[in-house]
């Protein structure tokens, strides 16, 4: 996908979960190292340069967040994805997003994990400064907050535009429902209904209805992906 190195450090103490993580990430084309404790994570980070670090919140020796602090103090800037049990999602975990890091609540789907890692890894890439983003025949104007396909304006509510913008910015990548909730609505929980699907459905009708080809695709069991054909 986008350039840059693709080395990932997985910090996880449960051997089977760790094994599954390593396998899924390797299949997706990442180079994966494994650390089973906080101290091991610290020494591995000192030796290697990682694109993303996934870290279990509950480690046998040091709290995942504390390990992350230590890494920052050591001058290691790689984005961290904290994997946390729901009961451990507190203010410190929720505050991660502000610092450019992310968190994921257990149990998670690996597709969701991959989507998060993709999004985190991209952060270190170049930031696009354009005011008009294009995917296929769709153009969205970030200044006037309008969207059009083949020159025909699409009427969108502000929130719908935000949703479309987020999908466009993550063109070709899988965006999970939870990611949409977090980035478009700033919600850190799952409303446990199909409300997001209904909402995306409406945006999809506006964007893809009566068009030559669809742009918004459903990714079964995970979320959505916006991409041009071919």
């Amino acid at each position, binding site marked *: 996908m986008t350039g840059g190195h693709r080395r990932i450090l997985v910090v996880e103490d*449960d051997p*089977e*979960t760790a094994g*599954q993580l390593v*396998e*899924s990430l390797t299949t997706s084309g990442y180079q994966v190292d494994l650390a089973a404790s906080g101290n091991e994570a610290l020494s591995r980070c000192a030796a290697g340069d990682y694109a993303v670090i996934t870290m279990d919140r509950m480690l046998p020796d040091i709290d995942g967040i504390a390990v992350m602090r230590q890494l920052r103090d050591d001058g290691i800037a790689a984005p961290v994805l904290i994997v946390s*049990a*729901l*009961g451990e999602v*507190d*203010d410190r975990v929720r505050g991660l997003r502000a610092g450019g890091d992310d968190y994921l*609540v*257990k*149990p*998670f*789907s*690996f*597709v969701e994990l991959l989507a998060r890692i993709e999004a985190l890894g991209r952060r270190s890439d170049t930031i696009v400064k354009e005011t008009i983003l294009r995917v296929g025949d769709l153009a969205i104007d970030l200044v006037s907050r309008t969207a059009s396909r083949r020159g025909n304006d699409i009427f969108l*509510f502000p*929130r719908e535009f935000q949703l479309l913008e987020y999908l466009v910015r993550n063109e070709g990548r899988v965006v999970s429902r939870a990611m949409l909730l977090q980035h478009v*609505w700033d*919600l*850190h*929980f*799952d*409303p*446990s*209904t199909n*409300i997001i699907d*209904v*909402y995306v*459905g*409406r945006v999809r009708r506006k964007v893809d209805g009566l068009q030559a080809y669809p742009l918004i695709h459903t990714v*079964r*069991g995970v979320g959505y992906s916006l991409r041009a054909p071919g």
Partner: protein
Amino acid sequence: MSGTLFVLLAKTLTSSTFRQALIAIAAFGMIASALFSYVFLSTSSYVRSRSDRGIMTEYSSLRSEYERSGRDGLIAQIQQRIADGNIANNVYMLADSSLAALAGNLREWPPTTTAAGGWIEFRASEATPNAASRPLVRAMLQTFPSGDHLLVGRDISDLDSFADQIKTAMISVAGLLLVIAGVASVLVTRRTVGRIESINATSRAIMQSGLDQRIPLRGTHDEWDRVAENLNLMLDRIETLMGEVRQVSDNVAHDLRTPLTRMRGRLEKAYHAQRIGGDDQALIGDTIADLDAVLRIFSSLTRIAQIGTQARKGAFRTVNLVEIAGEVVELYDAAAEQEGTRLTVVGDREVLVTGDRDLIFDAIANLVDNAIKHGGTGGQVVVANENIDGRPVISIADDGPGIPAHEYEQVFKRFYRLEHSRYTPGNGLGLSLVAAVARLHGARIEMLDNLPGLKLKLWFSAPIR
């Protein structure tokens, strides 16, 4: 400060201890006044009967003088007595049948209805030597067979003022006793109310913010300290038990979560494997979907439990209900459109509460979700934000079939489903979450018949500024 004093005083005056003290004071006061009245009445009647006996003796002696020596003898006798300074308090008068004075120290016959004879009391028309003002006279009068009238009496002004003195003394003592008893009962009650208030305040704080607080002891080792000690012991027990329960459920949660994560991982791997056929893939896909449903119930339960521990109060800040409601409505706009439901926000522009935005959002979202689902196709759902008497209130109303009143309480139980909604999607945890969020925020839930439909109101407490 004067406000709290006023409140304490008001609580003192309305407390049951004070009421009982008032009843006791009233009973005590009645007995005391009965006793004082008895003493007063018997004293004054004793004094009066003594003076009456004196008058009687004097009268009998004069009457015998009249019978012995006739009118002239009596006149001489009366004049002699008046001249005697020792009995200056005595009043005499002898008058003829036309009531013209013959002898005595009264200027005129008193106005009287007692024609034949008997006791009278009157104010003499002139001052006697011993009294400055017109003296009060009690006298016996009698008409002799010859038609002459004899009056023998005594100036009882002193007697009267003596009775007045006793009366004044008794009333002042009774009044003083009542005042002292009243003040004492206010002081005692205030002390009691003060202690009970401190116990009440701690109890309220414990209900609102958690089990870590204890009722302060005064170190006086009195009955209040013993009550506080016992309540504190009880709180210790409850805290230990709650901790144990939480520990157990945390362990269960953790122990379940890990194998579930693995299970889902394996299924996903199998789902994406190349070698399996379409049927098997569909089977695995359905299993993953079911597992996800289990996980969602599981995380809802964990979430409700987590809200229950009140750990999130640290994240409380002032938020505008109107903004949150607006965002919820925006999120559910598409779902309402799909159902053909009209979803609107009405009310004030700013309704501030102190709370956790995510949780309030979740609660309102659940209520709006329910209203859209149960309101039925083509219905109307109204979200209203108001400040009612300084309290922030949000209400969510639909015009669907509603809920029978006897089930109002039930719907907040975990996994509770109404009979007719058993086959609609949902897990029966939504309202439990709303209840947990309301509890955390100290908000009261009120359910009303919207005629038709259901109106659910959340009464928050006024925001902390």
